């Protein structure tokens, strides 16, 4: 099955990194196929950032995301711009500490990632990792172990513990949201 994931937000929130980590988890650690692409144009410089991942059990031919099944979003601007592309019944995981209005489409999962990152870790920079944790337990598109391995090998040396803690906060948030539904 082909699953299309789009991450979007502002430059500096780790949107591209999140996409690469997810694709690495799927392809290197879960033994699936994955392709990652990202936006490069002037839009990447103007603040908006976009990164996309396709995960599949089979060979991935067409490498671009057209209708995401999963949309991870970290800014209101990105929500406005890309929500319309979401596949019917798709999952929207959004940073509810930055986006106050829930999405008008899809299945919404509010995760106050930036707030949690600041309160629990003292650094907002790991908000993207919290969202990756939530994505893992909400969608099951990759295993927790694969995600943890991919996070640990992708983050700068010396920040592993902090990122691992952030990831587990995300796992728990996702599990809580799934239980609530």
């Amino acid at each position, binding site marked *: 099955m082909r699953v299309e994931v789009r991450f979007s937000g502002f430059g500096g929130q780790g949107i591209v990194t999140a996409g*690469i980590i997810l694709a690495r988890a799927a392809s290197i650690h879960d033994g699936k196929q994955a392709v990652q692409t990202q936006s490069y144009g002037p839009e990447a410089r103007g603040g908006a950032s976009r990164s996309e991942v396709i995960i599949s059990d089979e060979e991935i031919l067409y490498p671009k995301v057209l209708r995401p099944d999963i949309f991870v979003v970290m800014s209101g601007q990105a929500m406005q711009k890309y929500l319309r592309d979401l596949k019917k019944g798709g999952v929207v995981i959004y940073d509810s500490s930055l986006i106050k209005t829930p999405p008008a489409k899809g299945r919404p999962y509010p995760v106050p990632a930036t707030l949690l990152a600041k309160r629990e870790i003292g650094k907002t920079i790991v908000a993207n990792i919290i969202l990756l944790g939530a994505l893992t337990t909400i969608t099951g598109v990759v295993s927790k172990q694969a995600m943890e391995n991919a996070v640990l090998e992708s983050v700068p040396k010396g920040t592993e513990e902090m990122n691992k803690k952030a990831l587990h906060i995300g796992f728990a948030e996702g599990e809580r949201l799934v239980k609530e539904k």
Partner: protein
Amino acid sequence: MSHMQGVRFLQGNIACAEGAIAAGCRFFAGYPITPSTEVAEWMAQRLPKVGGVFIQMEDEIGSISAIIGARWAGVKAMTATSGPGFSLMMENVGFAAMTETPIVIVNVQRGGPSTGQPTMPASGDVMQSRYGSHGDYAVIALSPNSVQEMFDLTVEAFNLSERYRVPTFLMADEIVGHMREKVVLPEKVETFTAPLSRKGTKYYFKPDPKTLVPKMQVFGRGYNVHVTGLTHDERGYPATNDAKVHFRLVRRLVEKIERNADKIIKVEEHHLEDAEVVLIAYGAVSRSALAAVRELRRRGVKAGLLRLITLFPFPERLISRLARRAKLVVLEMNLGQMLREVERCAKRRVHFLPKIGGELHTPQEIVRFVEALK
């Protein structure tokens, strides 16, 4: 260990740079340009660690000049660029062809003409790779469609350039350059280096009678060879007013590729055996084309795909054969370039689905186009 090995998750441009290192490239001269810049960035980090040299040049004219010089100093060399830089390199592409210098030029194509669309994919430079410089000559051009092939075909480009002493192009596009995929990098790759001639011979440019390729020399090692872009005889001496010498030299530059075309050309064939419609595509578009062929087959349409891995030399006989029994459909990210090559060989009407602007053909678009052909 010189190049990266094992299972990795890499960007296409970085896989290309690692392929170059695996092939023995130890000199890179370039000028950064989107969407090829990561090749230069990676070479700048990696080459000093494997005993190589990276130079950021003043422009692309300087870049190709420097790699030609490096190869005559005995070092395998590469540059990487995109459309505008590719145009600047054209004069010295001819110089490399005329002096039979093995070099590799990577073009991660973007939308043109001019500065066009720096961050968008295109295949608008493929004809330029074959005919961009002045005069008659031949080159080899390859077209990767995955991150794995950005590695594999870069290695292949070096080996072909060395075997035939010819400038060789890796004609990538923004999609394969920038996307990330899993790759498996072998511990060891097969490499070929142009054999050196003996010293003191008088006829440095006398070709091997079978391959038509002469042996190579290296400056500073006692070869008193004269290397010139002027028409030269087999000693390497200018003979610019001699029609016979010019004919013999230039004819050989073209023929050494034509005569060896069957050994050089690589294609990928999918469902051609019983195909009534054959799609012809290369680069990123060939991925969509294969997805389209599978969908068409599910719908009962006997479709097949001929994927060009080698763009030049062109698989003329194969296209002629296919044209006799199937409808041909060319798909490319330009307004019709390889289309003309296909038409030349098919000698019949060839259907064409172009796409420019920066978006890849979707499989659905191709399916609709083929279904509407009836």
